[in-house]
């Protein structure tokens, strides 16, 4: 398959509402995981007292991003591979023919790629956005300020995603934003009160 056909296939797959909806779910669900993990990591590292600079916390956070991103891409790839193989077997049985190397199987593969990427980029973006203020620790922010700003970025990101989900589901966007943002605050409070 040449690059032009591959691109046409990708465009075809992205045009399907069910694929877009599933990609959105994976992106948001894993992004939620990533952002909350990042808030926990940032605050946990600061409260633990073993790190005294923003870059060290960024290093820990990036480790979490790699873990969550790999988990997202790997698990969704395997889940979708199993699901599409099952669907393909059912179709082949119904049609009494081999559907290997048809547009359908190529589209299944493209769907797998799109969904796995959505599942991986969600948590990575969540972690990176939350870690961003820590880059300015020592430049014009103290570690405490950078950590607070980092949590605020995480909560705002969650709120933004909540607002978007609320708007596409025709709910009150600010209520959906507050509900999502609240999760970040809850994680922060639990981390603060953790023993040690």
């Amino acid at each position, binding site marked *: 398959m040449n690059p032009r056909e591959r691109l046409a296939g990708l465009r*075809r797959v992205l045009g399907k509402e069910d694929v877009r909806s599933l990609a959105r779910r994976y992106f948001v669900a894993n992004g939620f995981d990533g952002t909350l993990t990042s808030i926990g990591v940032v605050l946990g590292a600061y409260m633990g007292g073993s790190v005294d600079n923003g870059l060290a916390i960024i290093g820990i956070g990036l480790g979490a991003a790699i873990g969550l991103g790999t988990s997202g891409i790997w698990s969704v790839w395997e889940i979708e591979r199993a699901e599409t193989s099952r669907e393909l077997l*059912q179709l082949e049985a*119904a*049609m009494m023919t081999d*559907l290997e190397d*048809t*547009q*359908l199987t190529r*589209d299944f593969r493209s769907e797998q790629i799109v969904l796995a990427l959505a599942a991986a980029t969600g948590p990575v973006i969540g972690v990176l956005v939350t870690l961003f203020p820590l880059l300015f620790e020592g430049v014009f922010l103290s570690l405490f300020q950078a950590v607070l700003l980092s949590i605020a970025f995480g909560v705002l990101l969650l709120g933004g995603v909540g607002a978007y989900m609320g708007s596409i589901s025709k709910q009150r966007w600010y209520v959906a934003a507050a509900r999502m943002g609240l999760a970040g605050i809850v994680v922060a409070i639990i981390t603060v009160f953790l023993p040690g």
Partner: protein
Amino acid sequence: MVRLRRIVLDILKPHEPKLVPFTEQLTEPEEIRGVTAKLVDIEENVRRIRVTVEGEDIDMETLEEHIMDLSGSIHSIDEVSCGETIVDDPWLPN
């Protein structure tokens, strides 16, 4: 060589690709002038459609390959028109 001008096929296909993109893609070869697809039956995983293809000189082999690539399976060839002009079936009701 006799020119194939019109062919009517009975095709079994999965629900995807849907009827519009399926029909659109069948018109891609240059020699195809037009395609009409009609839904005949829907089952749980597949649907049966009747496809009429018209063109100047339809390459049957290419058409078959194209339909197979779109995950369709030709069940039967129901009507064929060859030659300079398309002669309509006189027994068909008007």
